[in-house]
C-alpha cells in the first residue's frame, strides 16, 4: 500500500516536472510576447536593427545564416527569429512546427546593389527592372518562387549568350527562395532567375559567385562581382557604400516563432493578415479614424487628408507597398486613383475597392507655362477626340475592361510628319503609362500617338521619374507631359493643364471582408457549404474539389483535366507519384488525381487513403514512339495484335491488374537485332512500373520486354522523370515510351502512339478522414516516425535527394586541395621566412620578423578577404587559388617560427662538430641539423596542420564551395542540422586523420630508433 502511494507520488512529481519543462519554453503569439524573448536575427541584416529598436529588452542573438538560427530555435535556444518574409516562408514551409506571425514588423525595399560610380550599369539595370515590372515578369517571378507550399519550383528557361564579357553576380546562395543552389549545383531562385533575365537583356553571359552575405559588398567594391542580386535590402547604410537599383521586391520583415497548440490548427497556411480580425470596412465613412495609406504627394493623399481629417496617415512611396500594408494589416485603407487600384485588386485577391469614390479628379496633359500655342492645339485635339468618342474608347480599352493581356498600341501613322514633340512620362503607372514587353505602352501613350497624328508631329517618349516631369517641363527638356497628371491647384502654379482627357476616381482600397465563421467551426458543419473556400471541409464527391487544393503529376493528363474542370481550385503539380501521395497524406493538398489502377494498388497497403467517387476519366494508353520511327510503331501494333490473339495479353491483365501479382515472368531476351531503349518512370507505381528488389517490374515492363523479345532485341530501360519522357523520345534518346502514356492531342503532336494497349481509369483520392462517408469511419492516424526511420528520412533528404552527396564530394575535394596545397606552399614559404629570420643580415631578418608578427597577429579570415578583395581586387582570379595563398601565408608565419625553434633547438655543438669535420655550412645544415630538426618539429607541425585543415572552413567567404559551404547549402534547403553537420564533422575528422597518418609515417621514418627496431625485427 505504502509502496503504491510512493510510486504514485513519484509519478506525480515526474509528470509535473515534465509538463513544467514544457511550459518553460516561451510561446509567442504576438509582438507583445516577444518583448523579453530570445530573438534571433541575421548578422548585419535589417532584422537586427528592428529587433534592437522594437524589442530593446529582448535578448538578441545574431546568426550568420538563417539555418543556424532555425536550428537554434528548434533546439530551444531562441523564441523567435526576425527575418525577411520569403525566408520565413521557406522556413515555415519546411518546418511544420514553426510559423510566421502574420503582422510584418517592417517593410523593406529589396534591390540590386551596384558599385558606386558604375552609373551605366545602374541605368541599364533600372531600365530592365522597370521593363520587367511593366510586362509582368517580376510578378510571375514572385508567384513562382515565393510559394507557401512545397510544390517544386518552376524555373523559367532563359537563353543566355555564351559569348561576351560575363556579368558577375554576387549571391549568397543560402537564401532560399531568393537564391539557392539547385541539384545541378546551379545558383537558382527568384534572384537567380532575375540575374539571368538581366544577363539576357544585357546580352551578356552570367557568372555567379556564391559567398557569405557579409562578403558581398566588399566583393562588389573590389570588382569581384558586378551586381549583387540576393534579396539584399536597400538600407541607407548600404547606400553609402554601394548604389542600389530601384526596388524589385518589397520585403516584409516578419517574426518566425514556434507554433502554439491553437495556432497549428488555424493559421498554418492562412493568408497573411487573417489572424488579426479587424473590423471590416464596408463603407467610406468607416474609414475616418482608421489607418490610411497614401502615396507621398499624390492626389489621393490630398483628397484623403481633406475627407478624413481624423485618420492616421501612413505615407508610402509605391502603390504595391500600400497594398501590402493593407494585406499585412498595417493600414486599413489605401486611397489612390481608382484605375491603379483596379489593377492592384486584380493581383491581390484579399483586397477590394469601395464602390463610392472618395473624390473625383481630372487628368490632363501638362504643358510648359508659356507655351500657350501648344496648349490650344492639344486642347483642340482633345476636344475633337472627345467629340469622336475616341477618349471614351481609350478609357474602355485601358481602364474599364480590366484586360488580361496588355492591349496593343495601334500602329502610328507617320504620313505627314513635320517635327518632333517631346513627351515626358513616368512609365510605372499601369494602365496609363507602363512597360510591357520592353516597350512603353498605356492609355497616355496611345493618347499621345493620337495627338501626334492630329498635329502632324512625331512623338518622342522620355521616361523619367514622376517628380522630374514638372522640372523637365519648366526647363524645356520636354514639350508636354502625359502621365496620369491629376489637375491640382498646386501644379497649376507651375505648369499649364489642358482640358481633362479623363476623369479619375480616387477610391479607397480595403481588405475584403472574410467569412464570419472560424475555419475550425466549419469543419463540424454537416452539409458542405459550396461557396466557402475552406480547406478542411470534407469531400463527398468529385464536385467538391472545385475550390480545393488538388495535387496532380506535372505534365500528366490529370494536370490538364484538373485545370479544365476545376478552374477555381489550387492545382499543385508534383514530380513523382510518391510525392503526390505524400502530399495528400500530409494534408498539403486536399485530394489528388491519379491513375485508378495505381491507386488501387496503393490503397491495398494504405488504410489512410480512400478513393472519391468513380473514375472521372477513362484514358486509352499506348506506347509512345518517335514520329519518324513509324516502322517500330507498326511492329508494336502487330505484336500487340498477336499477343491479344494468343491469350498472352489476357494473362498479363489477369496477373497484374486483377490479382495484383508482383511476380515478373522470365522473358528471354534476344541480342540479335541490337538494343531497344525504353523510357520509363520507375516509381510510376503498381501495377504498371515499380522497382522491386532492384528490378523493374510491372505491366508496362513486361509488355516492353515481351516486345523486345519479339523483335529479338536486348532491352535497356532509361529511368527518367515523367516530364522528360516525350522530349527524350522525340530527340531519339529512347526508342519508345512504356509508361502508361495516355493519348492526348498535345502529345500526338510530338510523338506517335501505338494502338491502345490498355484503358486506364482516373480517380480522385484523398485522406479517408477527409472523405465524407456514411457509416463508421476507419480511424487511421499517421504513426509518428520511429527514430531510425527519421534518421533514414533525414539521410535521404540531406544526402541522397537531388544527389546532394555530390555537393559534399565536391566540397571535400576543394577542402583537401586547399589544405594540402596551402600546407605545401606554407611550408616552403615558411622555410624561406625562417631562413631570412635566422639570417644575421638586418635587410633579411627585419622583414621576416615583421612578416611573422603581422601574419600571426591577424585573423586568417581577415587575411583571406584582404587578399581576395584588396590585393587581387582588379584581377580575375580563382578563389581557390586565393585561399591557398592566404592559408599558405598564414601557415608560413607559424611554420617559420616552428622551424626556427627546431633549428635552434639543435645543439650548436652539432653544427660545430660538422664544420670541424670539414662539412660546409650548407651541408652541415642538410646532413646534420635538418634531420634532427624535422624529428623535433613534426609533432608541433602536425598540430598546426590540423588547425589549418579546420581553418579552411571559412573559405565560403570568398565564394569557394568547400565542405562547410556544402553543408550550409544543404542545410539551407532542408533546414535539418543533424545530417549535414554530422557528416561534415566526420569528413573533417577523416581528412585530418588520413593526412595525419601520412605525417606520422614521416615522423616514424625520421626516428632512428624506430628504423633500428624495424631492422631488428626483420
Amino acid at each position, binding site marked *: 500500500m505504502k509502496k503504491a502511494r510512493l510510486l504514485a507520488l513519484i509519478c506525480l512529481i515526474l509528470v509535473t516536472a515534465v509538463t513544467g519543462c514544457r511550459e518553460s519554453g516561451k510561446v509567442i503569439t504576438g509582438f507583445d510576447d516577444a518583448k523579453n524573448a530570445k530573438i534571433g536575427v541575421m548578422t548585419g541584416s535589417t532584422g537586427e536593427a528592428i529587433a534592437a529598436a522594437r524589442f530593446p529588452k529582448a535578448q538578441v542573438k545574431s546568426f550568420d545564416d538563417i539555418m543556424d538560427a532555425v536550428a537554434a530555435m528548434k533546439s530551444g535556444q531562441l523564441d523567435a527569429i526576425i527575418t525577411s518574409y520569403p525566408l520565413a516562408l521557406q522556413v515555415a514551409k519546411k518546418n511544420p512546427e514553426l510559423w510566421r506571425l502574420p503582422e510584418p514588423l517592417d517593410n523593406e525595399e529589396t534591390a540590386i546593389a551596384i558599385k558606386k560610380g558604375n552609373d551605366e550599369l545602374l541605368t541599364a539595370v533600372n531600365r530592365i527592372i522597370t521593363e520587367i515590372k511593366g510586362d509582368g515578369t517580376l510578378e510571375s517571378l514572385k508567384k513562382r518562387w515565393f510559394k507557401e507550399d512545397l510544390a517544386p519550383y518552376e524555373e523559367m528557361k532563359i537563353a543566355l549568350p555564351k559569348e561576351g564579357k560575363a556579368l558577375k553576380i554576387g549571391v549568397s546562395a543560402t537564401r532560399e527562395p531568393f537564391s539557392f543552389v539547385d541539384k545541378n549545383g546551379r545558383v537558382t531562385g527568384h534572384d537567380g532567375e532575375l540575374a539571368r533575365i538581366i544577363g539576357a537583356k544585357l546580352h551578356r553571359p552570367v557568372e555567379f559567385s556564391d559567398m557569405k552575405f557579409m562578403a558581398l559588398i566588399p566583393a562588389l567594391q573590389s570588382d569581384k562581382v558586378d551586381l549583387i542580386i540576393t534579396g539584399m535590402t536597400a538600407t541607407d547604410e548600404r547606400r553609402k557604400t554601394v548604389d542600389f537599383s530601384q526596388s524589385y521586391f518589397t520585403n516584409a520583415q516578419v517574426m518566425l516563432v514556434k507554433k502554439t497548440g491553437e495556432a497549428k490548427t488555424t493559421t498554418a497556411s492562412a493568408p497573411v493578415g487573417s489572424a488579426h480580425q479587424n473590423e471590416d470596412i464596408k463603407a467610406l465613412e468607416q474609414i475616418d479614424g482608421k489607418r490610411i495609406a497614401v502615396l507621398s504627394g499624390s492626389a489621393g493623399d490630398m483628397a484623403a487628408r481633406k475627407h478624413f481629417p481624423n485618420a492616421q496617415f501612413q505615407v508610402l512611396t509605391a502603390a504595391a507597398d500600400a497594398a501590402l500594408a493593407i494585406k499585412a494589416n498595417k493600414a486599413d485603407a489605401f486611397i489612390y486613383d481608382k484605375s491603379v487600384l483596379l489593377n492592384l485588386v486584380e493581383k491581390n485577391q484579399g483586397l477590394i475597392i469601395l464602390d463610392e469614390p472618395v473624390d473625383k479628379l481630372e487628368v490632363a496633359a501638362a504643358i510648359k507655362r508659356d507655351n500657350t500655342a501648344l496648349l490650344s492645339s492639344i486642347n483642340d485635339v482633345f476636344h475633337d477626340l472627345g467629340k469622336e468618342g475616341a477618349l471614351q474608347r481609350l478609357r474602355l480599352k485601358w481602364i474599364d475592361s480590366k484586360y488580361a493581356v496588355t492591349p496593343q498600341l495601334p500602329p502610328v501613322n507617320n504620313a505627314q510628319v513635320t517635327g518632333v514633340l517631346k513627351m515626358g512620362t513616368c512609365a510605372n503607372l499601369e494602365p496609363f503609362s507602363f512597360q510591357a514587353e520592353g516597350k512603353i505602352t498605356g492609355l497616355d501613350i496611345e493618347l499621345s500617338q493620337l495627338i501626334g497624328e492630329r498635329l502632324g508631329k512625331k512623338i518622342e517618349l522620355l521616361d523619367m521619374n514622376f517628380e522630374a516631369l514638372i522640372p523637365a517641363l519648366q526647363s524645356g527638356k520636354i514639350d508636354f507631359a502625359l502621365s496620369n497628371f491629376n489637375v491640382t491647384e498646386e501644379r497649376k502654379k507651375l505648369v499649364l493643364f489642358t482640358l481633362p482627357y479623363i476623369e479619375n476616381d480616387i477610391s479607397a482600397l480595403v481588405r475584403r471582408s472574410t467569412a464570419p465563421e472560424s475555419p475550425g467551426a466549419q469543419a463540424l458543419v454537416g452539409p458542405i457549404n459550396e461557396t466557402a473556400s475552406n480547406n478542411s471541409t470534407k469531400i463527398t464527391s468529385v464536385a467538391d474539389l472545385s475550390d480545393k487544393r488538388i495535387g496532380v503529376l506535372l505534365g500528366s493528363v490529370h494536370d490538364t483535366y484538373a485545370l479544365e474542370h476545376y478552374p477555381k481550385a489550387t492545382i499543385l503539380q508534383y514530380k513523382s507519384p510518391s510525392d503526390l501521395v505524400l502530399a495528400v497524406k500530409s494534408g498539403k493538398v486536399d485530394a489528388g488525381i491519379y491513375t485508378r489502377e495505381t491507386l488501387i494498388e496503393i490503397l491495398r497497403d494504405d488504410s489512410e487513403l480512400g478513393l472519391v467517387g468513380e473514375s472521372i476519366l477513362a484514358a486509352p494508353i499506348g506506347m509512345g514512339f518517335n514520329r519518324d520511327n513509324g516502322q517500330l510503331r507498326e511492329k508494336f501494333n502487330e505484336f500487340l495484335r498477336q499477343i491479344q490473339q494468343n491469350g498472352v495479353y489476357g494473362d498479363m491483365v489477369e496477373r497484374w491488374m486483377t490479382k495484383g501479382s508482383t511476380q515478373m515472368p522470365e522473358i528471354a531476351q534476344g541480342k540479335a537485332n541490337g538494343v531497344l531503349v525504353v523510357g520509363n518512370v520507375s516509381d510510376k507505381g503498381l501495377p504498371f512500373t515499380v522497382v522491386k528488389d532492384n528490378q523493374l517490374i510491372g505491366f508496362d515492363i513486361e509488355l516492353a520486354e515481351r516486345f523486345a523479345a519479339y523483335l529479338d532485341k536486348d532491352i535497356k530501360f532509361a529511368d527518367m522523370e515523367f516530364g522528360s519522357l516525350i522530349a527524350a523520345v522525340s530527340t531519339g534518346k529512347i526508342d519508345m515510351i512504356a509508361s502508361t502514356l495516355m493519348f492526348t492531342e498535345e502529345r500526338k503532336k510530338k510523338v506517335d502512339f501505338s494502338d491502345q494497349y490498355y484503358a486506364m481509369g482516373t480517380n480522385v483520392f484523398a485522406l479517408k478522414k477527409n472523405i465524407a462517408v456514411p457509416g463508421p469511419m476507419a480511424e487511421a492516424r499517421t504513426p509518428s516516425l520511429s527514430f531510425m526511420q527519421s534518421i533514414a528520412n533525414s539521410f535521404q533528404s540531406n544526402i541522397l535527394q537531388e544527389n546532394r552527396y555530390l555537393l559534399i564530394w565536391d566540397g571535400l575535394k576543394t577542402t583537401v586541395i586547399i589544405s594540402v596545397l596551402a600546407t605545401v606552399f606554407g611550408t616552403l614559404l615558411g622555410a624561406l621566412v625562417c631562413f631570412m629570420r635566422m639570417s644575421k643580415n638586418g635587410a633579411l631578418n627585419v622583414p621576416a620578423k615583421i612578416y611573422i608578427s603581422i601574419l600571426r597577429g591577424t585573423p586568417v579570415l581577415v587575411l583571406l578577404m584582404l587578399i581576395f578583395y584588396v590585393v587581387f581586387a582588379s584581377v580575375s582570379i580563382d578563389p581557390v587559388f586565393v585561399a591557398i595563398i592566404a592559408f599558405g601565408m598564414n601557415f608560413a608565419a607559424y611554420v617559420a617560427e616552428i622551424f626556427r625553434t627546431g633549428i635552434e633547438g639543435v*645543439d650548436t*655543438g*652539432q653544427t*660545430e*662538430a*660538422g*664544420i*670541424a*669535420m*670539414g*662539412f*660546409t655550412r650548407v*651541408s652541415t645544415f642538410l*646532413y*646534420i641539423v635538418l*634531420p*634532427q630538426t624535422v*624529428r623535433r618539429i613534426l609533432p608541433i607541425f602536425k598540430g598546426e596542420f590540423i588547425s589549418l585543415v579546420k581553418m579552411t572552413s571559412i573559405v565560403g567567404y570568398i565564394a569557394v564551395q568547400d565542405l562547410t559551404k556544402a553543408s550550409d547549402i544543404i542545410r539551407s534547403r532542408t533546414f535539418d542540422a543533424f545530417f549535414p553537420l554530422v557528416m561534415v564533422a566526420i569528413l573533417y575528422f577523416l581528412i585530418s586523420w588520413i593526412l595525419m597518418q601520412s605525417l606520422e609515417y614521416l615522423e616514424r621514418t*625520421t626516428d*632512428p*630508433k624506430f628504423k*633500428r627496431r624495424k631492422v631488428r625485427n626483420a
Partner: protein
Amino acid sequence: MITVEHLSKKFGDLVVLKDITIEINKGEVISIIGPSGTGKSTFLRCLNLLDRPSSGSISIDGVNILEAKADVPKVRQKMNMVFQSFNLFSHLSVLENLTIGPIKLRAMNKQEAEQKALNLLKLVGLAEKADNYPDELSGGQKQRVAIARCLAMDPEIILFDEPTSALDPTMVSEVLSVIRRLAKEGMTMAIVTHEMDFARDVSNRVLYMDEGLIYEEGTPQQIFENPRKEKTRAFINRIRSCNYQISSPDYDLYAMNAEIEAFCEKQILPRKTRHNLLLLVEELLQLYNPFLRTMPLDLTLSYSEKKESLELVCESKGEAVNPLAHNLLPDELGLIIINNLAASIAYSRVNDTNRVIVLMKKS
C-alpha cells in the same frame, strides 16, 4: 707544419688572445695548460677557424688559411677536433657517426667506410656499440667514439678541447688511455687539458697560457719541475685562489658561503677547517659591515698544498682604515673569535688600499 704568427682574437672589446706566435711540428703532442678563461680553448678553435682570429696568420704547410681564397673546409678535414661535450650526431648511430664524413666528404663507398669505421671502433674498444645511438652511451664511450670519428677522416692533426672535463672522474682514464695510444702511434695532437699528470706524461711540449698569452712554454720537465715565471709557478704549485667581491651590506651571504665551500671541497680541506673558515669570514664581514657601503671589499682565499697554508686577504680601497683596530669596534667578541681562528693577522696599506691578511690556524 702549422705556424701561428701574432695571432690575436677579440670578442668585441674583450681581448682573449693577444699576439700568439707558435710553431707546431709533425708528430708533436702539445699540451696547453693554464687557468680557466685565459683563452686556451679559443686558441684551439682559432686554429681550425671555428672562431676566426682578429689578426695574425696561421699557415699550414706554408699556406695561410686566413686568406679569403683558402679552402677552409678542406683544411678542417686534415685538422679534426674532439670537443669537451663530445658533439656526436644524435640522429645517427655510432657507426654512421663514423661513416658520414668519409662518405659525404671523401666520396668513400659505404661498405669501405663501414669496414674502416668498425676497425676504428675496435681501436677505441667500442666495436660492439656500432649500432647504438649516442644517447645510449656513457660519457667516456661517447668521447672515445668522438675520437674514432676524428680518426675516420685520417687527420694530420687532432685538436682536443678539454676532452675529459665533462666526464665523470671514473671515465677519465679510458679516454686518456686512447689518447696515449694515439700519441705512441705518432699522431700530431694539440690538447687543452686540466689533467696535469696526463699532460706531463704524454706531451713533447707544454704551453702554459695566461692572460691571453703563451706565458711560458717548454718541455714537460721544464714547466712542471722548474717553471721560470711566477704565475706558472703558482699554477703548477697548485695554488688555487677563490675570489669574492662584496659591494654592499646586503651581499648574498649564502652564495658566498657556497663558493667558499666549493673551494674547500676542491682543495680537499678537512671539515673542521671549512667550518672555521666560514666562521672567520662571517666575523670579519661583521667588522667590515659599517664600511661596506662606501668601500667595496675584495676577499681572496688561497691555499698552498705544499705549505698546507690557508690565507685570507681582505682588500678595500678608500680612506685608510683598519676595521680590526680596537677603537672602532662595538665590542671585543668578534675580534676574540677572529684571533682564536687566525695564526696571524697583518694590516698594511698599499696604494690607497687597506689590506688585511689573515693566515688560518692549522687545525
